[in-house]
Structures are given as C-alpha cells and as structure tokens.
C-alpha cells in the first residue's frame, strides 16, 4: 500500500506502524470518566466494511501519526491527515 503523507507525499505503508480506529484519539478524561467510558473507548469498535478512519505511525519516516481514511473493502485511501492537526482541531489540547 501507499499512503499519501500530507507532508512527504506518497510513502510505502511498510514504513508505517498501524494502530487502529482513529477513535483511539478520543480518550476520556481519567479524572472525570470512569471504567465504563474507558472500556468503550479502548475495546469497542465500529469495524466498518467501507470507509474507516484509522491511525498510522510513520515510524520509518518522520514519526508523524496520521489519520488515514481508507476503504477496508478495496483498500482505497480517501484522505490522509496529520493526527496532531486533527486532534488539535477536535480540541484535545493538553
């Protein structure tokens, strides 16, 4: 596979490490959320057959975490974003 890195352009997916659903970005707050919220966050997945937002880490590259939107049936990649930008925009802050 080839991932079109937003900064570096097309890069072989072999350079990346895959984590999983981009919902792993939405970590609850440990001081206010409890076990149930963390359980749902960590364990349950939509696991769609189709467009899937997922996290890839460019370990053998620039060490960026990316949010890749990829069709899990065709492997077509629809969108690639820097995870840091996505997280910032989502208000994850500090």
């Amino acid at each position, binding site marked *: 596979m*080839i991932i079109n890195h937003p900064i570096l352009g097309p890069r072989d997916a072999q350079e990346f490490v895959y984590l999983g659903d981009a919902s792993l970005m939405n970590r609850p707050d440990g001081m206010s959320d409890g076990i149930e919220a*963390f359980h749902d966050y960590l364990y349950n997945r939509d696991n769609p057959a189709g467009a899937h937002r997922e*996290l890839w880490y460019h370990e053998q590259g620039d060490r*960026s975490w990316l949010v890749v939107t990829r069709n899990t049936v065709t492997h077509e990649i629809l969108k690639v974003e820097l995870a840091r930008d996505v997280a910032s925009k989502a208000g994850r*802050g*500090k």
Partner: protein
Amino acid sequence: MTQVNRIAGGQIDRATTFRFTFDGLPYTGHPGDTLASALLANGVRLMGRSFKYHRPRGPLSAGSEEPNALVQLRTGARQEPNSRATVAELFDGLTASSQNAWPSLRFDAMALNDRLSTFFTAGFYYKTFMWPAAFWEKVYEPMIRRAAGLGRLTREEDPDEYDKGFLHCDLLVIGAGPAGLMAALTAGRAGARVILADEDFRMGGRLNAETFEVGGQPGADWAAAAVSELAAIDNVRLMKRTTVIGAFDHGIYGAVERVSDHLPVPLPGKPRQTLWRIYSRRAILAGGATERPIAFENNDRPGIMLAGSLRAYANRWAVTVGDRVAIFINNDDGLRSATDLQAKGVDVVAVIDARADGPLLPDIRHLKGAEVIDTRGRLGLTSITICQSNGRIETIRASALGVSGGWNPNVNISSHHRSRPVWDEAIQSFIPGHDGPPGLSAAGAAAGALSTHGALATGQAQAIAALADLGRTARAELLPEAEDAPVSITPKWYVAGGKGRAWIDPQNDVTVKDVKLAHQENFTSVEHLKRYTTLGMATDQGKTANVLGLAIMAGLTGRTIPETGTTIYRPPYTPVAMGTLAGRSRGRAFKPTRLTPSHAWAEEQGAVFVEVGQWLRTQWIPRPGEVHWRDSVDREVLATRKSVGICDVTTLGKIDIQGTDAGAFLDRVYANTFSTLAVGKCRYGLMLREDGMVFDDGTTARLGAHEYVMTTTTANAVTVFRHLEFCRQVLWPDMDVQLISTTEAWAQYSVAGPNARRLLERIVDQDISDAAFPYMAAGNVTVGGLRARLFRISFSGELAYEIAVPARYGDALIRRLVEEGRAFDAVVYGTEALGVMRVEKGHVAGNELNGQSTALNMGLGKMVSKKKDSIGMVLSGREGMVDPDGYRLVGVRPVSPEGKLTAGSHFLEIGAAAVVANDGGWLTSKVYSPHLGSDIALGYLKAGDRKIGQRMRAVNLLAGTDTEVEIVSPHFFDPEGERLRG
C-alpha cells in the same frame, strides 16, 4: 542421441551446441532452446508423470502454463524440483532428472494407481480409511504421505543468493508481445518512464511463435526491431526473464527477474534471482492468452499438446513433436498449426475439426464435424481414433496431436484484487472485469483482442489512455500492418460418450468423470468443484484447466458458464522460489545485528554473547579454568557484591524528553509522578498500557527544568517511543514536548558494588561523594574533561551508578574502568549476573513484565497515583484486576538448599494433585544465588502476599520435578536497601 526432430528455421543459434542430460542420458541442443524444445528435438516426448495416477506425460504447452513436463533441474544443493521444462532455458551442461517416478520414468511402479483409478475417484479418501480409527495415522496416511508430492527438495542449504530491489515508473507494461511492445513504444516515445517486463528470455511473445507478418516483415523481426528501439530510449527499462507475479495495492507490482537461471551457476556476487517491487502509476496487462485443450479419452499422452504450442515448437524452436502430426480443433486459430507445420515439411495427417462450418484447408485432410475419441501409445502417442461426422470410426497413426479448444485471455493479474472476470461470448472465454486493480488496464490477447492487429491497436490505445490519465500526451502513430482475423470458434469442451477418462487438469489427474461425480454429489459451486476434485490446484493453478472444468460443470447443471461462476487467480502468477521472496534476509543476516560500543572489547575478552532482540549483549565472560557457565556467573556476581562490577547497559532505551510540558507529560504517561522530581534527580517510573497492565519500567532523570531523559527496557525501547509519540501528537497535541531517541548516542555502563564510588572517583572529574551525589542523583559530569552523564541508580541492590559517555568513547571508557578497577579487583559482568542480582533484589524484568501483569501483581500497586490522570490508571481499577486473591510477586526458595528450581514451574500446595484447579501460579524467573547458596526464584502466586513464609511445591511436570519451596519476600538481598544508599 541426435536431434532427430529438429527442422528448419527457428530462433536458435545452431552455430553453438549445448550438451545436457536428462535422467542421465546425454543430449544436445542450442542457445535459444528450452529444455523441452531440446528434448523434443532429440525425439524425447516423455518428460514426467502425473500426480495421482502416475500417467506418462510430455509437455502440453510451450510456456509457463505447463502442467506436465515438470523436472528436477540441476543437482546437489541446487536441485530445483517441479521446474517446467517448457521455460527452463537451456545452457551447456544442464542436468535434469525426472520426478515422481520410481524406479524410472519409463517404468513407474506407482502407475499401479492408474490401474486402480476406478476406485481413486475424486474425494474417495473422504469416504474411507476410517476404520479402524488408529489406522489412519499409522497405516493409511503414512502411505499417502510417502506417495505425496512431485519433485524432491534436497535438505541442503540453497547456496545461491537472492536480491531485492525497488523500481519506479509511470507505466508498467506486463508482457512484451505485440500489445506490450506497442504500448511500451507508444509511452516510451512520449517520454514516459516505462518498464516493460516479460517472463520469456526473448521478447516478442507470440510473434516469435507465429509466421505472420507485421509491417511487412516477419513478426519476430518486427518485435526485435521494436525491442531495439525501446532499448535506445533512456526512459524505458526492458526486463526480460522477468515475471510480474502479482498486483498489490496502490500500483505496487511484484516481479521476479531470473538473473542467473540461464547460467550453470550465478556469477560471483550476483544473485540467482531478484524480487523487484515496482511502484507504477499505471500498468497495462499485456500478458497474452493461454490456449485450452478439448477433453477427450486418453487425451493426456506424451505427444498430445496444445495446437499453438505445437506450432510454437516448429516456428520458434525448429522442432516437430512427431513425424506424423494431427490437429484437433474447434476454432480457426488451430488451423494455423496445420498450415505452419505443413509448410515446414512435416506430415500433417489430418485436421479433425469439431465444427461443421468454417473454412476448409486445401491440401490437407481436413475432417469437418469430426472428433478425436481415443488415443493409443503408452509412453507416447502412436495413434488417434476419430469419429467422423458420418459416425465413421477411424484410427490414424500419429505421433503428435495438436489440440485447440480456444484461447483464454491471461486475466490472472487483473483478478488479483478479487475482481471477477466477465464472460465474452465472442471468444468463448473470460476477459478482465472492470473492477480490477486501479490503474491497471488490459491490452491485446489478455483483453480478448486475439488478432495481431487487435493487439497492436489496443496496446497503443491503452498506452495513450494511461498516459492521458497522468496528464501526458502520447501520439497515435500509424500502426504497422498486421493480420486481423476474427475469432471463429464453436464451443467444444469435451467429447462425450466414451467410457474412458478424459483429462481436464492433467497434473492433478482431474477428469471429466470427476466433474460429473462432483455434480452428482452436489459439489456444484465452482469453489466446491475445485476443492472436491482438486481441479486447478496443481502447480499451474489451472491455467489450462479451469475454464474447461467450469464449462463442463455448467453443461451438467444446465446453467450458463457465467452463472456457474468465474475463476479468479491469486498471486503469484507463476510459482516463486522462497529464496527470492526472502532475499538477503537469511542466515546471520536474517535481521540486522546491533552491537554496543564495548563489543570489540568484549570479543577480545572472549565474552559469550546472547541475542537480546537485535542486540548482542555480553552474557558472561569466562576466565581461564572456568568450565561451566555458572562458574563465570557466580564469580561475576560475588565479585560485584564484594567489591565492584561493571556492566554494559547501553542497550536500554534512552529517550530525551524536553519542552515546557515535559513534566506534565511524564505524569500522564507514567503511573507515578515526575513533575515534582527535583532537577538533578532520577526516579523509578512505572508505565502502564491503557488497559492497566504494566507496559514498561525504567528510571527517568530530570536534567533541567524542561529536560528529562527516560530509560526504557531494552525490549520495549521502540514501542515506548512510539507510544510517547502517540500521546504527544494524538492525545495531547498542544503539549509542548519534544522527543528524540538517544539510545545509540551514549555508551552507558553500570558500575555496582561497595567500591563503585571509589572506582568512579578515579574517573569522574567531579565530587561524587554521598553528600554531593546522593542516592538517585543524576546529572552531567565530565570524564577527563569529556561530557558525560552520571546516574546513581541500582538494580542490583548495591551502591551503584550508571555512567554514560558519547558512544565513540565507550570502548575507551570500559577499558579505563577495567584499568582503574584493577585496584579493586573489579569484574565485568554480563546479562546473566545482572539477572542474578536483580532477582536477588526482587526487581521485575522481562519475565515478569509479560504484558499480563498489573502493578498490583508486581507488588507495585501503590505506585499508581490516583491523584492525576495517567494512561492505564482508570482501567487498572477493574474488578478482575484488583482481586485480592490475584497473583502477587513473591520470592521462592527451595526448602532444601540443594533443591532445584525451574522457571515456568507451577505452584501447588503440598499434597495437592497436579490438576488445574490446584494451580497456584508459576515461577517467572529463576537464578542460582551464590550469595544465598541456592536456587532462588521470583514467581506470581495467587494471594501470594498472604502466603509469605508458607511452604508449597514448585512442580515442573515437563521434567517430572517436584520441589518443596518456601514462599518469601521477593527481596532476597538487603531488603532494607542499606547498601545502595551507602
């Protein structure tokens, strides 16, 4: 033997003669020959035996689709089983032997199976061999397994090397027949970066095998001219002997270049083959088409082959398969075989044309509406029996029979993404579907354009389209003139009526009867057909068989062929040597080797090394007189505890963490708190996964207000760094934290033991007295003016430090430490002694950090701060993980000092039966403690914290040992920690 069947013409170099042997007999051939063409030239038709019935077989084809003529090429460690004689390029001295035959190819005892074939129908084995139950494994299966397989693999290491590489292009053209050449010319002339890959050792595809003209010259000459033109274009790369094996995602194609297979052995330093990963923006599949047979009784004898192959042997290789040739066809293309062979002076005894209509050949006995209904000749065809349109049966003497049931476009690569080919009624075959690999289009015969003109035209058109896609313009130049005969075919799949067997998949011995049986038993879906009969599962993957089998099943079920199903193909296009896929990553180069800065020194000392991930670490350093490894390890431990020991700990992961939020960041990623750590101090940190299990541990030092350096375990250095980047970029993107690994930049040594400070005082420029540099101090120092780092930390329980210098000085530093250490009888210790001392001190390491254990399990539950949010804090509180009866880390000592312990033993109560209900946990790590004079261990024991002082058993059922043990605190050594603060 002489080349009795060599005829005039051909693309072989008669000026040079190659000698070769097959089954020990000598033959000759010429450059340009394949093993099959040379054997046929020498009058050898019998080249193999089939898989199941051991039927005598000769080549069915002249290409990579070959199911029959499989041989063992070369000898010794280079012996290569199942090699297709039809594509094995002849070289001087080639040695080949037959396979799957005993005692000889001509007389094969296992041909008994053929006599019993009425019992050995498709799937018969599912219905028997069940009684008595034990007989399957003891009798039946060993028998079957002994008979299994085709060629033999030697058990020697493959002596050849294999390479891998990467190529990039705008357009990959797969196949260098007329379509591929035209596509490459069109794109190459337009300036695009083109790769033209062809599996053959001569480009041109069918043009080399046909007699018709292109642009007013022989097709082969036109092809050669096109290749010359392409070779002169800088932006075109020609890759002959290169098979594109698969279409992978996003335009990546795998290709295997046979660099040296046409040579007796590879040239020095050169690979046998190279696996290329081709990154293409667009690709054109111009892989041609494969002829398919018609099934009829005994259609598998040596001398019976595809009609197009018969004429390929004549036209390209100047070989006739026999002196009397017959042709059996259902389409016009097959007629060319008759006319070409006749033109070469071969006696064409009859053309049996299953069609009543169509053209009639002059000057040849052309029988319309006729069928071949049987053949004779045990080791090679001697005659065919035909049934004419009027029902007259006639036996005709013939030594070769060409069969053509039509041509199947080589859709294979277009279906590698599981796209279904679609049925084309006009050519009675499948053509590539529209949802194939993005960026791939098909041209020429692969696309169903079966005429030469069609190939040229589609090759050009697809190249123009592909370049247009890329925003480039390619010109549609005038195409060279070429034949454009329409496909004229009347479906004919098999000759019905007979009682004998008619082969569909010759290698796996799948016959029309087997398909009928599958139908009778309701294995009618195409997948069931394949799996039940093994149709298409042989080394050729059904290239000649699949469509035929499918069509026959369609006929039986009364459905159309597309309704019955399609066949799709999986990579690789043709089988690929495992060595090629592995490349250079084998033997000691399987993975890179990581060496520490003291490695050269340790080698000089005769150190024993151990693999720790990719690192090689010193395990222990034997000294003269030491016989057993324990002698060395005990000495290293005792000397360290007595005075001072030095250990290379460079492999521990080191991560530089800076930024104004560095402290807050560490509070999030560690279970305990780091923001409050004073500058110049370090602290043991426990890192959890989000699921609350312990991820890693290590010490982290604060070197400045916004600067920390974290250490990780050797094993987790990479995963911890990845996790920290995840936290920094994804979870808390606005934190001001910067990370960089410095694992390799610093050579780091542990200096431990009562004299550690005295030794280091001789080396470090600064005051490191207890007052100036107390327990858990950390900071920059200098060594002879050189920048260095010093940490006062201990995993051995001794007064200990870790000192780091830039890696280039690591060798000098260990030499200096050893030199200065002589005054203290200092010892250098390895990972074994390190392990002994950490177990004596009760520190968890790899065996306890198994990803299944919580801080509570390790006795470190209090380290998980609830006052702040940190990764894993919440979920570590789940009920199953705070079970008061859960595992707790304990120390284990044998009740008798001689008692032996084994890591991995399980705890049982005294007197309890060895059943899972009594399983109390297990011993995680075991060492011999020279300090205590006995084996000691750590273990996870259920409710272990309440069992200190109790006696239990450590049982190793694998070795039959059962040792009474006392459960103790994991801190065997200096539990109060007085020594390390000293």
